[in-house]
């Protein structure tokens, strides 16, 4: 008898059945990030069936003194983070809640981290283990609930950012952090280049940083930690205090005015933090490493700029397929296709995502 909210057996069976019939599945949780992959289904998509993970939800195990939580993939982020907050803990990677929603599985599958990324780590840095269903519908467990674990390949972290194409995530164990005792935001009037210079200098100093955001001539800096340390750092950095505590969650969830639709295409670039400024209108986070640009349709200059700086960029709503962005180098593309064969030989899981299917796989 399954626990309430445990639909793992049904989900794995649905994948096995789809594999037997050769019918691709499109995986969905809360739907908050559907726009990230809609583009892949725009033109001539092969018939597919939706597979919703939303009902597969709930906490499987949470022991605050272990700093680890294990939850089903469909668990809403809001619910999970409220529970953690009630015990003075948080998800280190601050997943965006686009459209105010999102599930744990979706956050891990998309691999998107929030403003604290450069200090508290990426999504994959906090993933300790997963249970997944591969493209044959087999339920498999990798990793576990402990920090240190080098038994076998790190299949659980490979799932992060794979958008479900290497496995349907069923449950995930995540490392947690204590909530900081104090938090403060400072604001500086600076150009983008000046802001990057400050961020570069701060990265070489022991400071309790947990977020930076530069846009429109202002640099916002978040300090988190023990009260005394935050107060001392604020005095040392200077700037003005910023009282709006909603600034960082709004930035995380793309409710910041910068993200309002413009009719142009939103590009996300990840570059070495000290990469030169190429766009004075960009929004720059992560101490310089994450840069958001609006560009006219058809303008792919953000990709070239990021590549020149040693990073990469693609449209945020690009369908996880590089259709509108740069292709992966050939060896990585080929290896990615082979990995997909290893996990999902029939391409049942989100077939349209990833590299163009006609390149990977003869349908």
């Amino acid at each position: 008898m399954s626990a309430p909210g445990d639909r793992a057996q049904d989900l794995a069976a649905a994948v096995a059945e789809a594999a037997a019939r050769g019918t691709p599945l499109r995986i969905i949780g809360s739907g908050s990030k559907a726009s990230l992959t809609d583009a892949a289904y725009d033109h001539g998509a092969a018939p597919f069936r939706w597979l919703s993970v939303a009902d597969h939800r709930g906490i499987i195990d949470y022991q605050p003194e272990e700093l680890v939580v294990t939850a089903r993939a469909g668990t809403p982020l809001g619910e999970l983070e409220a529970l953690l907050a009630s015990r003075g803990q948080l998800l280190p990677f601050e997943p965006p809640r686009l459209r105010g929603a999102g599930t744990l599985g979706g956050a891990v599958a998309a691999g998107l981290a929030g403003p604290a990324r450069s200090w508290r780590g990426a999504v994959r840095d906090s993933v300790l283990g997963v249970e997944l269903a591969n493209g044959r519908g087999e339920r498999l467990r990798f990793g576990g609930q402990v920090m240190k674990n080098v038994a076998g390949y790190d299949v659980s972290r490979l799932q992060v950012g794979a958008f479900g194409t290497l496995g349907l995530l069923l449950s995930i164990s995540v490392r947690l952090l204590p909530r900081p005792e104090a938090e403060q935001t400072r604001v500086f009037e600076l150009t983008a280049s000046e802001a990057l210079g400050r961020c570069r200098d701060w990265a070489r100093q022991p400071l309790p940083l947990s977020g930076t955001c530069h846009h429109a001539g202002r640099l916002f800096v978040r300090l988190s930690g023990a009260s005394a340390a935050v107060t001392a750092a604020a005095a040392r950095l200077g700037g003005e205090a910023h009282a709006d505590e909603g600034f960082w969650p709004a930035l995380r969830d793309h409710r910041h005015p910068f993200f309002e639709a413009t009719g142009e295409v939103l590009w996300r670039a990840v570059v070495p933090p000290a990469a030169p400024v190429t766009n004075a209108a960009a929004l720059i986070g992560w101490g310089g490493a994450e840069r958001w640009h609006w560009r006219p349709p058809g303008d792919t200059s953000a990709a070239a700029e990021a590549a020149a700086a040693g990073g990469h960029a693609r449209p945020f709503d690009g369908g996880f397929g590089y259709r509108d962005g740069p292709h992966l180098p050939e060896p990585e593309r080929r290896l990615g296709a082979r990995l997909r064969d290893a996990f999902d030989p029939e391409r049942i899981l989100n077939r349209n995502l990833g590299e163009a299917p006609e390149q990977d796989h003869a349908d």
Partner: protein
Amino acid sequence: MISPHVETLLRAALPASAIIAEPLGRKVFESDGLTALREVPGLVVLPEDEAQVLTVLRICREHGVPVVPRGAGTGLSGGARPLADGVLLGLSRMARILEVDLDNAVARVQPGVRNLAISEAVAGHGLYYAPDPSSQIACSIGGNVAENSGGVHCLKYGLTLHNVLGVRLITIDGDVLELGGKGPESAGYDLLALTMGSEGMLGVVTEVTVRLLPVPPEKRLLLAGFAAVDAACDAVGAIIAAGIVPAGLEMMDRLAIEAAEAFVHAGYPLDARAILLCELDGVTDEVEADLARVRAILDGHGATSMRVAESAADQAALWLGRKAAFPAVGRLSPDYYCMDGTIPRARLAEVLTQISRLSESFGLAVANVFHAGDGNLHPLILYDANVPGEQARAEAFGGRILELCVAAGGTVTGEHGVGAEKLDQMCAQFPAPELEQMHRLKAAFDPTGLMNPGKAVPTLTRCAEVGGMHVHGGRLPFPHLPRF
């Protein structure tokens, strides 16, 4: 043996100094740090650059010769144990620091660069490379990537995984994969994360980009003694539950305390059943505040003695006892096995009690020295290989310990790797479908199975044969190196 034809091809393509063929020269490479498992390699090749690595892999691929990559050879699980019919590919001569990029706070280094050499190279800028495995004065960064190495400070600063931003990975097919870089993430699948801890099974790493962190301005080290192991374990849980993340949180039990004290006179309390070493680092205000909280927690959990190191020299002395604990225990006994299981912190007291009971029933002493903060146990089983039957008993005992770890929701290896040593234990941790999935994953990188064959993931046949748990232990090599 390597066929004369393949050797001729390698000699024609590489400088003479890059090839070691004479038997005595090859014998030097017969094992890594796990000296119990040894095999003289068919040929040793020590390339000087990536082009030579590509050449070696091409020739081996074309002639079906297996390749075993090796870093500094300090690994503890036989991950670099050679093959008599294979090439041992040593990366020790690719040991240059290619670039220190202060603007991005990263260093780009070749795989043979020693772990500690990175921190030494950037110390003048107030920076360091955080992961500090036991063997950091000798082990190489390429080997750290292969094992996803940790160290005493990974509770706060993470493993190799969390501190490497990019690698160049060469597959047996000759593909050069640039994974990650100076930026924090790359496009496509996270092959960088997959490379971490992959034990040389997927390819050869020829370059590593590491993240550099500012050296913390304040470090405080606290030593606490306890009258019972349980109380010390509970104190560990309480510190973490209080929202404090120490830089290091280590525990030693009575036998380990006595051994360390007799060896290096660190000043440990000899009347204690267990000691905790708790290091706090960061900015001064935060460290002082946390130190006061930790002291209160330890008091509340019945610490019988407490001492904060008064100086850097005092800190070094207290750490020395911990770092020298393995060789110190080695003085008590002709032989010992070092285990490496990890368990959830909350199960520490329970599992240690069970280990202590097993110790009585097997009639073998065990010393516990371990990373309490992240539940990574290193029980050292004392035995004498010259006493008939003792080695087999020690192996059986070790196997039971790893079974306990798996049963407690943990893993058979926290940081030493599976290598050639823990293949049988993998059978206990993973059911067949998971193992098959891992084999398919490897085949995606290495279709012909020439990269470090037979390591890390057991065949299903092997698992069927062992049936249950059976442990090959290992004697600790390099006794002069400090061990965590």
